[in-house]
């Protein structure tokens, strides 16, 4: 303190140079002694399996290819740790990756099922997030935003809010959607019942031989867009077996912008149609070019039947984003016109469900009588066994054989068998086969809440149990043909199943995709 006014010491030129020299010497010494003399790189990490001599083969490695333009799934390279789990799911569970030859053509083969998003431990692979599009539509005062919810989301959405697997949150889901501002909340179950009427009628026509030569037996279900694309890629020769019915999502999409618009007097162009699906392939399905039948019907081909698909996970994020606690909501009801559903529709969410529902109504369509109690609990088609089969007696037709597969590796078993039978000129073993892309059916779809890795049968079973509980105990009706709103739809708009208008709006065609890949010869 006392030196405050004292002049600073002068530094001599020699002193200054000495100081500079000293500093630079220390710098040089430090950099030689202290700095790394290693070559560049190699300072990071790699998963353990790769740190072995090059002569040891690594078993689980790499990752699946994903087209950056894939409508269903995206990957964040920053999060990828090359654990190889996506390949395990794609190659072993779904038999897609590794089932085509290289060199590839001009497509990255993907059935959009999204099972990889359930297996990826770091969530590097996720659904393509389209929440923004929905939020924008909800904020747009000129748009009438309509939403539909798939059968399987109501037994899984709760998990995202801390409820145990399989919790039934149907009413809370509707309440949340109404709170988010959707103008109408419809149930995809409604069009699942409608699908049964259309697909059941088609099946009866196939069995009766009305469609001989064009549509042979067995009939394949067509509700699972991942399965449909799989068949288009690997078994295009069997596409004639595929039911021409659209999936329930696309049926509802087509009806929203025609039937609903007409009934309510809303301009179809002002309707924005959203679906909540347990599925990433639905995002791809709604973008299939031919899915604009409502648009074609009203003369505006640019209109899409379904504008945006959100997965169950995206809906959960949207609800959380808006600060809504799903568990605290009072149950609400689906809106009328396309909100009624039966137990036959809700079991679409479970493997074997479409089959069971179809059998119930096919019995009615053939015999004009409701099926006996035994057919209402068709246990052989339930459960998590990969390939299931059953035989039923239907008066007037005799024995009807059905088969069910879920997980595309299981689909191959039935498809290869059918191919071989056809080659040898054998009569078809089955009348009707249900195929679901995902193991367990939609309840374990690629858009459902993530569970343990790999996804466990325990969770799948819990969700399945709830689906069957809704069918047996909660809904009043268990037969699609008893759905009054479906009956009204036929009466007011479509006339009858497989009518000209029904064919136009509710049926579709398939594409042979075998030219976009070189399928491996198996077996």
């Amino acid at each position, binding site marked *: 303190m006392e030196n405050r006014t004292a002049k600073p010491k002068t530094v001599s030129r020699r002193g200054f140079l000495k100081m500079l020299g000293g500093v630079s010497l220390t710098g040089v010494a430090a950099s030689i002694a202290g700095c790394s003399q*290693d070559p560049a790189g*190699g300072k990071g990490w790699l998963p353990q399996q*790769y*740190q072995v001599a090059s*002569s040891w083969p*690594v078993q689980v490695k*790499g*990752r699946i290819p994903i087209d950056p333009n894939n409508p269903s799934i995206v990957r964040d390279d920053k999060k990828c740790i*090359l654990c190889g789990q996506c390949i395990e799911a794609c190659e072993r569970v779904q038999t897609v990756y590794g089932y085509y030859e290289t060199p590839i053509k001009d497509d990255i083969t993907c059935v959009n099922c999204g099972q990889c998003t359930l297996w990826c431990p770091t969530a590097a692979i996720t659904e393509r997030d389209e929440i923004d599009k929905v939020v924008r539509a909800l904020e747009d005062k000129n748009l009438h935003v309509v939403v539909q919810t798939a059968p399987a989301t109501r037994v899984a959405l709760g998990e995202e809010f801390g409820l145990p697997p399989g919790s039934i949150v149907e009413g809370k889901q509707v309440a949340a959607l109404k709170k988010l501002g959707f103008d109408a909340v419809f149930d995809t179950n409604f069009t699942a019942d409608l699908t049964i009427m259309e697909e059941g009628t088609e099946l009866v026509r196939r069995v009766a031989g009305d469609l001989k030569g064009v549509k042979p037996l067995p009939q394949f279900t067509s509700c699972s867009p991942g399965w449909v694309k799989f068949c288009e890629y690997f078994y295009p020769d069997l596409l004639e077996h595929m039911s021409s019915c659209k999936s329930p999502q696309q049926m509802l999409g087509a009806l929203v912008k025609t039937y609903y618009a007409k009934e309510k007097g809303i301009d179809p162009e002002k309707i924005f149609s959203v679906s909540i699906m347990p599925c990433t392939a639905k995002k791809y399905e709604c973008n299939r070019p031919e899915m604009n039948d409502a648009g074609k019907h009203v003369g505006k081909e640019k209109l899409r039947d379904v504008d945006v698909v959100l997965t169950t996970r995206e809906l959960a994020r949207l609800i959380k984003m808006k600060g809504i606690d799903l568990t605290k909501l009072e149950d609400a009801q689906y809106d009328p016109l396309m909100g009624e559903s039966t137990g036959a529709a809700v079991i679409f969410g479970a493997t074997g469900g479409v089959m069971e529902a179809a059998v119930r109504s096919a019995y009615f369509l053939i015999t004009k009588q409701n099926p006996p109690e035994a057919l209402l609990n068709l246990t052989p088609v339930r459960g998590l066994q990969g390939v299931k089969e059953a035989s039923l007696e239907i008066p007037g037709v005799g024995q009807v054989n059905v088969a069910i597969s879920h997980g595309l590796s299981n689909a191959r078993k039935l498809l290869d068998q059918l191919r071989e039978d056809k080659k040898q000129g054998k009569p078809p073993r089955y009348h009707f086969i249900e195929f679901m892309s995902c193991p367990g059916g939609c309840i374990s779809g690629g858009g459902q809440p993530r569970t343990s890795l790999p996804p466990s049968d325990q969770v799948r079973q819990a969700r399945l149990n709830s689906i069957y509980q809704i069918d047996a105990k909660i809904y009043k009706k268990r037969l699609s043909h008893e759905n009054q709103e479906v009956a009204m739809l036929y009466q007011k708009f479509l006339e009858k199943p497989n009518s000209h208008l029904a064919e136009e709006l509710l049926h579709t065609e398939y594409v042979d995709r075998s030219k976009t890949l070189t399928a491996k010869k198996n077996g």
Partner: protein
Amino acid sequence: MAKGVLVDITKCVGCGSCTVACKLWNDMKFSEKEPTMGPEAKLSANNWTVVRFNEVKKENGKVWRFVKTQCLHCQDAACASACFAKALQKTKDGPVIYYPHLCVGCRYCMIACPFNVPKYEWDKTFPLVSKCQMCSTKVAKGEAPACVSVCPAGVFKYGERDEILKEAKATIARDSKYVQEVYGEKQAGGTSWLYISDVPFEQLGFNTKISSVPVSTYSHNFLKYTPVVAVSWGIILTGLYHYTKRRNEISKDSGKNVKL
């Protein structure tokens, strides 16, 4: 016993595992401006390897081909020959490696490289040169480079360069779909990384105009005169010194005021 890698472009499905492995092992950041995959993918200071997407015409229509790009690790590396600080060195294992502590930042290597591989850390205050090391530390331990070890599609063969070159030639001779050339066998005097393809290399963005003479040979053509030039320049300067010195003495002696 130099190692090499054979890349079979026909087997690549474009998953990009190799690009992620490189980032993980070498602890490098991803940048959205510098994609590691796709049509715009380019090598950069942070991208030691990229997978470039190409859509090319083939017999009946278009096909997609993916080309993994990284340092080719020349047998007679131009960058190493251009580096007077010995920051770039060709090892006997095969990799051409870079020692940051020796680099003076002259960037001669970048000019020398015929494949345009070395990049500069332009965004750093104290930038260094940056390029693929072929995971030299892994190679030294008998492991394959990170990118090679993670490939699920069987694109790569890793081994002694001589052997994989033989294998490459056998493969293209056996299967007529391949272009009858092994890229890297002769380019720039031969490289450790070799490529085979069913689409002509120039359509996939490869530089096919590279001579088979190593670049260092060209520089050697004039650099070999360096000692001669240095010695003779010294002799000439010494001569001039003595000449002017003598001229000064003479002018001083004769009283003339000669200004030099």
